[in-house]
Structure formats: C-alpha cells, structure tokens
C-alpha cells in the first residue's frame, strides 16, 4: 500500500508543494529516491552518485567551483544546492528543464557527470527510467529548508534577527535591491538574468540560457554553499557583495537591475551578516539508506 508522504513544511515555506498529477509524493517514492540518490551504480564507472556533487552536509552542493564527474572529468558549472527545489519552476543554471522529473535524468547521462545511458541505468537498478525519474524527483521535493532566523523574523518574532542583521535586511530590500531577484520564501524569482558573471575578456565565456543569462539561485543555506555563481568564480559572500556593489561586469546584455550600489563598508558587513540568518533546519540525510522523512498515511 502506498503511504502518502505528509512532509512537515518548515516555517516560512508554502504549504502547497507542487507535484505533477502523475507523480504524487509518496513515502515509498521518497525512500526509493533517497536510495537512488546515493547509489553509485548510476555512474558509468561506479565512482560517483548524485550525492557526490550534492552533499547533504553542504546543503546538497559540493564545495568546489565546478562539478566533478566520472573518470576524473570536470563539468562546466558549479553544483547548485538542492534546497527547496520542489518549489522551482526552472531547473539547471540555464533553466533548460521545466520539471524535476526531466531534470534528474540529465546528470546521469551527461558525459562530464555520471555518463551512463538511461537503459543501462535502468538495468543496473532494476527500475524503468520513469520510475527512476519519479523517485529521484520525489526525494528532491522532500529536501526542505526553512524555520531560519529570517523566517521567524518575517513571521512576527522581531527579536529573531540581530540589529545588524535587521540593518542588512533593510539594505537587502532597499539600497542593494537584492529583492529584485532574490524574493519570496525561497529567495529566488526562478528567472534568468545576465549579471555579468560570464563576461570575461570582452566576451561571454558561457552563454547560459542565451545572452549570458543564468537562473537566480536560492539564498537559503548560503553559508554552506560556497563557492558562488554558476561557475563558482566567487569564493566568499564578501566577494559576491563586492561583485554586485561594483555593478557586475558591464556588458550589452546586463540586466537593468544590476548597477553600481555604492554600499558603505558597514552596509556590506550587515548584508553578509543578514545572509547568515538564512540557514534553517535541514533534514538529516547524511546517513545513506536510512529513512529520514517522517511519514504519515
């Protein structure tokens, strides 16, 4: 019998967690997806699993500038954090996948990541491709982060943020206008923007979704997910703040929201301090093959 998974939604996130009509979230699928997520058989040489680049201890990112794949290969982009992706509307840095079910199968096939044809992957784990996609997508939907100091603050606990963090939030929403892209409970607009990160030596080093545009990442658990940007080119939050303060890298496609901010040193410090308040409660997924999601009928 299928158990419907009643996932405890942390404070600050929507109770409505979207899932396709043909893939309702069930406890069985979450558990199966969790096992597949840590299963190295899904890579060509058996050396990596999804969790290699999406380490739960790093908020499901990997700590390196670029993703590492099979046979020592290196990917093109930074491994994004898999936090609250159930609320996402576009997937990958360039937003090329519209659903999680579509997204989860790509890294398995990508030659720089797991490099395994899907029929072979299905054969190795004894499931059909659709079941793999649905299970992995269900598992990723269950990875939620909320109930941070920020969430408690915006829900009425005015002491949840320190005075410096409150000042940082004011800068975040006002002078720095970070909310132009980092808005809503998940602190992302799920849209594509050219912030100039890809502009190098007078040209776009990576076209992203076209014209150097990349998807806005969530800022939740941001202290765990360095280095930053689609290419992992900025090592620290301070580097990120300095990058935006300077108005990004000027280029013809630069998003109109990106411009010089002229932030004062104390404003930059407050902004960084505010971002430390975006860490919440992540479920404990560090132990492989051990169910860690509360289930209910």
């Amino acid at each position, binding site marked *: 019998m299928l158990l419907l998974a009643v996932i405890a*939604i942390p404070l*600050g*996130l*929507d*109770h*409505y*967690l*979207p899932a396709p*009509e043909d893939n309702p979230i069930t406890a069985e699928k979450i558990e199966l997806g969790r096992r597949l997520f840590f299963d190295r058989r899904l890579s060509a040489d058996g050396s990596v699993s999804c969790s290699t680049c999406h380490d739960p201890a790093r908020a499901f990112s990997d700590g390196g500038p670029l993703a590492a794949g099979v046979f020592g290969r290196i990917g093109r982009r930074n491994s994004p954090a898999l936090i609250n992706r159930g609320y996402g509307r576009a997937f990958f840095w360039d937003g090329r996948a519209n659903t999680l079910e579509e997204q989860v199968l790509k890294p398995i096939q990508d030659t720089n990541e797991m490099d395994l044809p899907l029929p072979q992957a299905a054969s190795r784990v004894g499931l059909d491709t659709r079941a793999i996609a649905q299970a992995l997508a269900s598992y990723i939907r269950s990875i939620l982060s909320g109930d941070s100091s920020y969430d408690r*603050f*915006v*829900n*009425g606990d*005015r002491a949840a943020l320190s005075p410096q963090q409150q000042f940082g939030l004011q800068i975040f*929403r*006002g*002078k720095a*206008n970070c*909310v*132009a892209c980092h*808005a*809503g*409970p998940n602190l992302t*607009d799920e*849209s594509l923007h050219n912030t100039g990160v890809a502009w190098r030596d007078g040209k776009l080093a990576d076209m992203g979704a076209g014209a150097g545009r990349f998807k806005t990442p969530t800022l939740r658990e941001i202290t765990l997910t360095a280095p930053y940007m689609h290419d992992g080119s900025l090592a620290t939050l301070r580097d990120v703040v300095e990058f935006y303060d300077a108005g990004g890298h000027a280029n013809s496609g630069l998003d*109109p*929201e990106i411009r010089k901010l002229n932030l004062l040193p104390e404003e930059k410090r407050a902004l960084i301090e505010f971002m430390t308040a975006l860490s919440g409660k992540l479920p404990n997924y560090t132990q492989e093959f051990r169910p860690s999601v509360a289930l209910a009928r």
Partner: protein
Amino acid sequence: MRLRPLTLILAAAITLFAQADITLQRAMRKETLEGDLNGAIALYKQAVAEAKNDRGIAAKALLRMAECHQKLGDAKARKIYEQVVRDFADQKEAAVARQKLAGTDTRASGIIARQIWADAIDGEGQPSPDGQYLSFVDWTTGDLAIRDLATHENRRLTNKGPWSGSEDFALDSLFSPDGKQVAFSWFNSKNKNSWELRMVPTAGPSSQRVLYRNDDLEIIRPFDWSPDGKEILTLFRRKDRTHQIAMVSVADGSARMLKTFDWRAPFKMSLSPDGRYIAYDFPPAEDSQERDIFVLSSDGSRERIVLQDPANDTFPVWSPDGSRIMFVSDRAGSNGIWIVPVADGRAAGQPELIKADVGPLTPMAITRKGSLFYGLMLRDTTVYVSALDLRTGSLTQPLTPVNRPYTGNNFSADWSPDGGQLAYFSRRGLSQQRGSMLICIRSSDTGKEREFITPLAYIGGLRWSPNGRALVIWGTDDKGKKGIFEFDAVTGAIAPIVATGEDFRDPMWSPDGRTLYYRSSRVIARDRETGREREIVPGPMATNYMALSRDGSKLALLVEHLEKRAMGIYVVPTAGGEVREILTLPEGISGMVLEWEPSGRNVIFARAKNTELWRVSAEGGQLEKLNLGMKNAAVMRTFRFHPDGRQIAFTSGQAGKSEVWTLENFLPTLRSKQ
C-alpha cells in the same frame, strides 16, 4: 482665394461635429458623474441631432441613450438598440446593440441587472450572505461602514474620527457566514503605517479585535470567509513585493501560508462553499497579460488550472451550491460575465456567457439566494486641447478631446519642447497590471497617434525631455517597485533612472538635460552623469506638486500647511537659495496642480477644487482668475502650455464614480428551479 468657400464649409462642418462631440461629452458626464439619466437622455438626443453626417457620434449617442433608458427600466431602450442595429450597421456600436438586445430580453433569460446604489461612496465592499447589507468604506473619514439596502441607511462600524486627527482607514471587508461579524483590513498609521486584519460585530456598539498583524507585510487583504467561520482567506503582500495566499485562524490569529506569487497577485480569490477549494485568477506566464482561473486545495495538497484560454479570465466567484464558478472574461470580445461548471476542483463543462458587455465591473460576492453583487467604476478623465490667449486669459477655440475611442481613460498630457508632439498616457482594461498603461504620442501636425504598451503597472505622470526624444515618467514597474523611468519615444524602450523604491514624483529635466528634479518629502536635484543627489529645499516639506520654469532657474511648489488647513505656493531657485512663499490659499488641503506660464513671469494654478485656473506673479501680488476652466465643474487634473503659449492641453474629469449593481436569477440551477 479659390479655396476659401470650401475652407469655410469645412470649418462649419468641423465646428458642427465638434459641437456634437462636446454635447456627447456633456451627456456622458451627466450620465456617469451626475447620475442624471433623464438629463443625459435629452443631451444624447441633442448630440444625435447635431451629429447629422457624423455617423460615429450619432451611433455612440444613440447607444448610450438606449443604455440610459434600460437603466430606467424603460421599454424605449429596445427600440433604440434596434435602430442602432438597423441604421448603423457600419459602426461598431451595432454589434454592442445586438448584444444588448439579447441581454434586454429578460422574458427569455429571466436575468435582471439592478442598480442598488447609484452614487456609491465605495464600490469594493461585500454584501451580507442574506443580501440585506453591504459593507463599504466611508471615505469621508476612512471608517468601515455597512449600508442597509432596504432603508438606504449607512452605519459606521468603526469610529476613528476625522482625517485631520487620524490617517487610519479601512479597506477590504467581508461578512462572516452568519452575518454577525465583518472582517476588514485596517491601515494603522500609528503603528509604522502597518496593516492589520480586524473583526468587528455588525450589531454594535462593540470593540474591534485585531486578528492578525505583521510588521513585515505591506498590505493584508481578506477575500473570503471559510463556510465554518473558522478561517479567513487572505492575501498578504510582503515587503519584498511578493504575495501570499494565507488562511488566518479566527480563533488564534495564526496564519497558514498556502502559496506564494511573485510581484503579481490575484485580483480575486473565492472559497468553494464546502471550503475545500480556493479559486483565483493569475497570469499563466511571466510575460502574459491575460489571466487564467486556477483552483488550489485549501489544505495545500494540489492545484489545477480550471480555465486555460488566450482570453483574460478574471474575478472568479463560486456559486452558492458549489457547482459553478462565475468569472469575468473578454473571451467574447468585450468584458462579460461567464460561468463554468466545476466538480472536484476541475472544469466539468464548457464556459457559458451569462451577460455580455458589462464594462469594468468588480464582482463582490454571490449571496445565498444567488444574486451577484458587483461594483462599477466609471472613469471620466479626458485630455483636451484648445487654443488660448494668455493675455486675456481666455480660450479662443472650443475644447477638443484627443483619442476619442478612449475618451475617459486618458491622462497627463505634455507638449514636446518643439510643440510638434503631444504625449499622454492612456489606461486600458484593469489598472495595476502589466500592459494596462499605454503611452500615446500624437503628432500636432497630422493628428496621427503612436501607441506604446509599457511594462509599467502604473504611470503617475510624464514630461518630455529637452531633446524631444524621450519622456521622464514616475510610476511603478511591473514588479511593484516605485521609481522614475525614462521612456524612449522612438523605440518605446523604458529604463529606470531612480529605482530605490521611494515614492518620487513630478520628475522633470533641466533645459540642458543634465539635472533631474523630483520630489517626495524632499525636493531633489540629481546629476545625470554622477547620480549625485542634492536637496534643494533643506529638510522635509509637505510638497503636493511642483513645476520647473521654462528657463530651469526656478521651481514652483505647492505645499500643504497642515496646521492651517491651507495650501501655499512657494518659489525656490534651482541653484539653491531662499524658499519664498508667494501665496497662501486658505481653502483647505487639496490635491492641486500648477504650472509656469511660458514667459516664466507668472505661476498658474488650479483652485476651487481644481475647477478654476488662477494666475499669480512669481514675485507674489494680485491674483487673477482666468477663463480657462472646464465647464460643468469638471476637475482639472493636469494642464500644460504649448511652447508657443497659444495652446493648452488639459486633463480633466473625475477620478471615477462608483455604482453598485446586482445580477439576479443568472445561475442556471436557480433559473431552472423557477
């Protein structure tokens, strides 16, 4: 010389047509602003007679005359609609008349539209479940009130006192399922200008209860009450400009966040009678200007699109038996009321048109007996141009409205520096959404117009840049952020100039284009190159409006003297210096406007509730009343002079007038029972 007779004939004809148009505008004002339907019918009849060969005006006047008869319940309406269909088949009014004929046949459909409050103080409240009362905001004080629809007596449920003592006010309101309480949003000026969700018993006097308060919200809007009375369906707007659907517990005031939207929000949300589903309207894509109808489970478990169509489907409301959702849609070409059968949160059949051509209505709710209550906002803001003689202070030609098809929806005209173009903005459809604000640029020579759809959700005003190739605009972008924007009058591109989110108004460039002036509580000069700001007036000032002299040397400011309940006109050099009051107007605080005379010697300002124009020297001194005002006490919202000083462009009219109507016997289940 040979052309003279023809010129005279043409001039006479133009004069006659212009007269018919003016009479038509007078009739529309009488109908919509004064609510004098019989007076309007007489004027429409006069306009038809004056129109003679202008079939467009004649058809429009006849159509509106028929609508007046229909509102009066007069059978003449049908005959006039038939006349329009028969005699004016080449005019677009014929199609409308055809629809009206279908709609007026109440014997066949049994549907009755009834006006229940002609000059509504507010058209955005809700009826009580039994349809006996209507909640509304009494804007004379900002209090929440209810109206007894049988006796027409209004009764305040809150008592905050006059505006002079408190800037608090109520906004959205709704009755509890048992009709004993009203939940409403309240702007609390004493608590950091925050919003609260409150409740008050309808059988007063009794104290209010604050149900939900959160300093991190910009606005709270209650939309519906759960059928068991335990929760209130509410929309939050957060300080990051995102919106959330929340269910607020009546017992303890806790909030359950169901779904987050970006900077856009549903126009309407409605709970199904069993409380299981929430219907709402929302654009299906970021770049979509049209909306679809969605249904979200109230426990957050699932969501479905009920209606997905290229048309604009808005304002869903559940029928009392839960078998249908009523909505407003333009899928038949103009706004109409539709219903779609639903079962288990899905569409269970095809949408059906109930009433065509309903205009810009805002559905409130459907009562238990199946009457739909809705508000109608009638706009009447028109841009006129005319010739004038500033020496005598008189108009030398009749006023001519621009952009006739959209008369009533045009605002804020400004002449380009060479006088060759007139720019204004025009509102289409529902306000406050992407695509609803157009910028129109009219050639002064040919009268041809170019229209640009803007991504701005709201435009407050515009001015030409000195190079004549751009406009500077104040308003709100599509993400809800206030700012000052530059509009390229050639390409239509818009870029932010000042985008801090602060409410800056009245931007205008210096003649050399190097400095941008604008105001909030501060009067600011901003260097175009460096972005550096300089305060022209030291400290905050309650400035209501400002204008720059043509040579760029002085600003004229309209300033509120709150303590004296008066307005002051000040002149200040843009280079800095003495801020000098040249005139005090002891007639109360009002949203006045002013402009510099092209000579720069005088300031011309509107007074007497903006129905008259007066002139005062920039040095101060004697006042002179000009004969430039609008007739029929229409309100002047802006005015600008042509650079040659011989023409004027007005924006005139009321912001809007509200009516409340009911549509009865429109639900098929109820009709079949009858």
